[in-house]
């Protein structure tokens, strides 16, 4: 895959990072995923729970693509990746813990 090759020598950040081609591949993927997303509640007759799971999965996939390729997280030092992931559990804990209340 185009993405994987680009990873070499990425310690210093973007240098030798993603190529223009990768940006367009990601763009295409995002567009296709968005179309699928819009179809799920309107055209495809899944039960509501399945819809929700599918939609969340697709949204996270898209978000991950943006973060990894457009925000170049894929080519950043490992320490920065860890730092970025760190607050996500807190966000999940906040929402899930309060959800049990209602």
């Amino acid at each position: 895959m185009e993405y994987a090759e680009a990873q070499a020598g990425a310690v210093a950040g973007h240098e030798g990072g993603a190529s223009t081609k990768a940006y367009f591949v990601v763009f295409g993927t995002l567009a296709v995923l968005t179309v699928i997303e819009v179809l799920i509640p309107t055209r495809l007759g899944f039960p509501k729970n399945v819809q929700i799971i599918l939609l969340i999965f697709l949204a996270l996939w898209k978000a991950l693509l943006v973060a990894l390729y457009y925000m170049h997280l894929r080519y950043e030092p490992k320490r920065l990746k860890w730092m970025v992931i760190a607050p996500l559990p807190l966000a999940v804990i906040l929402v899930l813990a309060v959800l049990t209340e209602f």
Partner: protein
Amino acid sequence: MTTHAAALDRGGMDATEVGMGVYNMKLGMWVFLLSEVMFFTSLIGSYIILRAAHPDMFAQPGEVLNVPLTALNTFLLICSSVTMVLAFAAIERGDQAKLKAWLIGTALIGMSFLGVQVFEYIQLSGHGFVPSVEGYSAAGAPLYGTTFYTMTGFHGFHVFVGVLALWYLVIQAFRGKYTAANHGAVEITGLYWHFVDLVWIILFTIVYLI
């Protein structure tokens, strides 16, 4: 050889060797974005919680909100992300002309996004979908309008700030401030812009489609 002093003066890109392995401005932007994650968690999380508490007070997708229009808006924002990243790729090669072109493109798409959102707000409030208890006459209950406008409004505000930053970059680009060796401002504005896009991806799914 880099000095802290030089790093300080320009938040310069020459400080890539220190600490985290990225220069100060970029690290600072990432740190700031982490706090933005928590901010949007508080807004989106409140929506999720309130909706779970009162499922009857919210409408089904497409019932009140205009999904096709917003799908277009989502597409616009994705386009602006790709133009932004192309602007960054251009200046990495030192290509001034393309930098300017892609930056202007990004800013214009960002403004179209805001335009569509304003149009959407006007249309929705015409149908009685307003943020306040008073005057609410759409499907669901005022809680729906309350959460919807707060979330999308704050996202729109972030886009607005991003557009301002982009025009600032355009001006600086025309002054020839950015080079292949020094374009930290383009990169960190890009990070912010993509983050705003990322938030919209989540917001679009949760608010419009679920």
